[in-house]
Each structure stands twice: as C-alpha cells, then as structure tokens.
C-alpha cells in the first residue's frame, strides 16, 4: 500500500508559503475554511483573508473585483458549491473578463462519500472545461497538488483546480515535475494506454502491475491538466499503443473521456473505452465503497484493458 497524504493539507500549506512570498495573494472562502484548509492562510495573513460566509455567488464576484485591481485571488469551497452553485458569476464576472482568479475546490467527486449526492461534484469538470480561457487541473496526489498551486499562482488567468476530500496515495515521486498542459507518463507500455486523472492514476498504476503479470504492458498517463489538453501525448499514445482507456471520477459527459476522444477521433482513431460515472447521481457511502459501486477500481481498469486489447485490430 502506497503512503497516503492529504491533498487539502498540501493546498493549505502551499498557500501559506505563497502568502509570505507574494503580498498580492488574497484568499477567499465561503464558511468552509477548516475543511478547505484555507484557515491556515487566514491564521498567518488575517488581513488578506476574507470569509464571505455561505454566499458563493458573492464570493466569486468579490474575487473578480479584487483580481481586477491586481490581486492574485484564491477562492475556495467545496467543488459542488464552487461550480454549479455560482456558475453564472464565474462565467460572467471571472471567465468573460479573464480575471486572475484561482478557484481551488476541495471535496471533488464521489469520494466525498457519506454526505450523499448533493455533495458529490461529478459534473464540475464538464462545467469548468466549457468556459473559454479557463485552465482546469486535477492533481493526482499531494505532491502534485503543491506544484499545481504554485504554477497557478505564477500564471495569469482563471483556473479551476479540483482537490479530493480523502487522503490520496502518493503516486508522484520526489523528483516529480509538474508542467502546465503537459501530461506525465507515469509508466511505459506498448500494448494499451490508460489516461487517468485524480485518484484513478493510482488505480491505473495498480492495474498495470496486475496486467504486466499477464504479459500486457499498460502505459499509464496522468493527464492532470484537463484543459488545455496535451494533444501530442494523446496522439502519441494512440499511435504507439493502439488502444486508449480513460479513467476519471466524473460523469461520462464533458470530462476527461470526452476531451481525449475528440483528440483521438480527429488525429488517430483507435479502440477506446471510458471509465466514468454513468449518467446517474450517486448516493451516501464510504468513498471506497462508492468507487467500487461505479466500477472505478484497479480491478475495473484491468477488466477494461483486457477487453480493449481484445478489440485491437
């Protein structure tokens, strides 16, 4: 079992580092600072932290107004409240003016667990990828998350960064180097490729071990930057492995699978399969149980890859 670390702590700690390096960083939250971990920043820099209360629409507008005056703004709440709840505010006040606002949403996906379907952000990536000018990133673990937050702070423009609630297995080593818009090949292989985000990167790596014992060499790609998508790496994988599986903790429409499929269909069609949450809302349960229910497991990856390889011409 890989070592696990809290991706939210990584966010909070990185914010504190950035806060001391850059006076222009301002952080907003909507009454969830102890869960999003922005309270760490609030403690160190109380003048540059604003709790907006349970009013996400107002928070996004304030974020835009601060950014318009030159601030680098991080705005955090749970993923369901950071996207669908205030989508028009993000669209008009932030996206259409290309404001320098970093929406860092915690509690993405179904691994939120027991709180149930109202709290499961499973359409957030589709919503945010649909907004022109937004950069959308899903870090795979705490190490990558820290690098992503730094990269976002250093890059002008609107970002959506989705973090998970539970601790995540570490999949990025000490020498990991995140580059925006560049996918990272986590493991080489020539028989098929799995392109994954978030928790599914770990599951894909586990699956690759199992498949290797059967003689199937699975390439594992971490597509943490969902937008802009690294088309080059996708096309190369299609050309070199001839089969592509995508894996994400998100609905089938408008997420990673849709984006990769567009690239593959246009440049180098090969058999594809998609591990997603099918067209349903989930329910309460432990995060692991829910992943299991929706087939988002290492075993699921193994089965999908076996059948995908069988479809290769």
């Amino acid at each position: 079992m890989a070592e696990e670390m809290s991706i939210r702590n990584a966010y909070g700690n990185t914010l504190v580092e950035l806060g001391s390096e850059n006076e222009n960083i301002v952080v907003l939250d909507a009454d969830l600072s102890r869960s999003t971990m922005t309270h760490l920043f609030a403690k160190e820099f109380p003048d540059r932290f604003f709790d907006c209360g349970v009013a996400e629409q107002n928070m996004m507008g304030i974020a835009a107004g601060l950014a318009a005056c030159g601030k680098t703004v991080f705005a955090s709440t749970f993923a369901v409240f950071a996207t669908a709840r205030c989508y028009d505010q993000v669209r008009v006040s932030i996206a259409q003016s290309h404001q320098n606002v970093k929406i860092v949403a915690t509690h993405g996906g179904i691994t939120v667990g027991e709180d149930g379907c109202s709290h499961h952000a499973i359409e957030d990536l589709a919503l945010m990828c649909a907004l022109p000018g937004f950069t959308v990133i899903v870090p795979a673990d705490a190490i990558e998350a820290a690098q992503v937050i730094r990269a976002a702070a250093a890059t002008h423009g609107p970002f959506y960064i989705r973090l998970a609630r539970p601790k995540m297995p570490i999949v990025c080593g000490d020498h990991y180097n995140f580059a925006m818009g560049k996918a990272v090949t986590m493991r080489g292989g020539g028989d098929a490729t799995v392109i994954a985000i978030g928790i599914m990167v770990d599951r894909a790596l586990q699956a690759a071990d199992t498949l290797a014992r059967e003689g199937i060499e699975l390439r594992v790609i971490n597509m943490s930057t969902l937008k802009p998508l690294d088309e080059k790496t996708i096309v190369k994988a299609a050309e070199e492995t001839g089969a592509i599986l995508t894996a994400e903790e998100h609905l089938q429409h408008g997420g990673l699978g849709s984006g990769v499929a567009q690239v593959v269909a246009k440049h180098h069609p090969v058999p594809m399969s998609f591990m997603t949450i099918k067209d349903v809302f989930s329910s309460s349960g432990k995060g692991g149980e829910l992943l299991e229910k929706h087939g988002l497991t290492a075993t699921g990856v193994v089965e999908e890859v076996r059948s995908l390889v069988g479809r290769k011409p």
Partner: protein
Amino acid sequence: MQERTKTLRRHIITMTERAGSGHPGGSLSAVELVTALYFHVLRHDPQNPNWPDRDRFVLSKGHAAPVLYAALAESGYFPVAELLTLRQMGSRLQGHTHMITTPGVEMSAGALGQGLSFGIGNALAARLDGRDYRVYVLLGDGECNEGQVWEAAMAAAHYKLDNMVALIDRNRLQIDGWCCDVMNTEPFPEKWRSFGWHTIEVDGHDLDQIIAALSEAKIIEGKPTAIIAHTIKGKGVSFMENKAEFHGTAPTSEQAEQALRELE
C-alpha cells in the same frame, strides 16, 4: 452639466436607433446619475484608463451600456463617432458592457446582480493597498430581485466599506411591468438601512441632490452608502417615459426623430 444630460440622452437615442436594438429606457433614467459621476465626482483620467488610483464606476445593470458609453465617449475614452457602432459586428461597444473590449469599462456585466460583489472586491483591494479611490456601483431596482445583491449588501456592511457607494436607479419598472406588481421590493429604503447601509433618497433627475448625496457619502465612516435615486424610466422622451416596453426596444427612425426634437 444640464447640457451634458441632454447630450447623453441624444446619444442614447441615436445609438439605439442606429443599432436597431438595445435598452433606451433604463439608460435614460440613469442619465443624471452618470452625468454627476463622470462630469463632477469621479477622479479619473480618460487618457489613462488603468490609472491605479482612479475611482471605480461599476455598471451592474449592464443593459444600460448606452448611457455609460455616451459618458465615456464624451469624457474622451474613445471617439464620440464610435457610439454609432453600438452592437454591430466588430464594434468595441457590445450590447452589454465588456471590460476587455471597451476602454473605461470597469466590469463585464449583463447578467444582473453581479456588480455590487465586484465593487466589494475593488473596495477591499483599495483598503489592502492603502489607496483612497472610491467605488461607485450603479444598480437597477428590478435588478434588486437578484439574491446576490443582498449577499453583497450584507458583505459590504460587514466589511465596513465606507469607500463604496451603491446608486440604485429606482425607476420602478422592470421588463414585465411595475416592480411592485412583478416582485415587490418595498419597503426598499428600509431594506438597505436594515442591511447596515447609510441610506439617502434623492430625486434621481436632480443633479444638485445627487451631488449632495455623493458628498455626504464621502464623510460617512464605517459603513457603505446607498443612494436611492427616484427616477422615471425613459426620462426626457415623452412617449418613452414610464413605459416598460422601452426597456429593451430601440426607437424607430420616426420615434428617434421625435425624441431628438424633444431633446433639443
């Protein structure tokens, strides 16, 4: 300044007639508010639209773009002749305000209810940076149906933003009819007071009253100021006054001709 109000009104008529669409009613009702700000109160430099110390004017009711464009052009942000490109392909003047394309526009708007929150961001930034600019947000009264306005009203008072003013163009009409029939917001001034705002009511077509209220706002400490300006939708053009249908309908060329005669 009185002459300015006529010039702006003429621009609003000419622009929307030429465009064949647009929002004359709520532009005409806000003419005195915008005139008082751009030609008397605002600290701004049309040659330097990004001057960090400029006062911010945030048009939250983005459909009143024509009145803002007219004031910006008359101030020198762009040529007056450009007003006639309103809403046309390739123009810098979109149907609703867009801050990236139009010099002098502080916020992209068009979806109602968002400007007060944006203004709070501007006002907080002033405080963080130790700058003394002031933030003025113009809202419509129909716009105050939007819940976000009240989230922001709560927050501006909570943050004690005495560097910000909300001007509400209370023309009492919204698209579907009289505000009191569509969605009653009364008691309106009491709502702003109870949300913690220093609240002043003025005749929104009386420049002296508007300027006096804006001066009063400058000396209020510890809370934001709301100026409720009682206005007439379509003000200045007889057949547009108090007519909801001129919220989003441009005058025909005959109507424009008559309007311009009335505004001579």
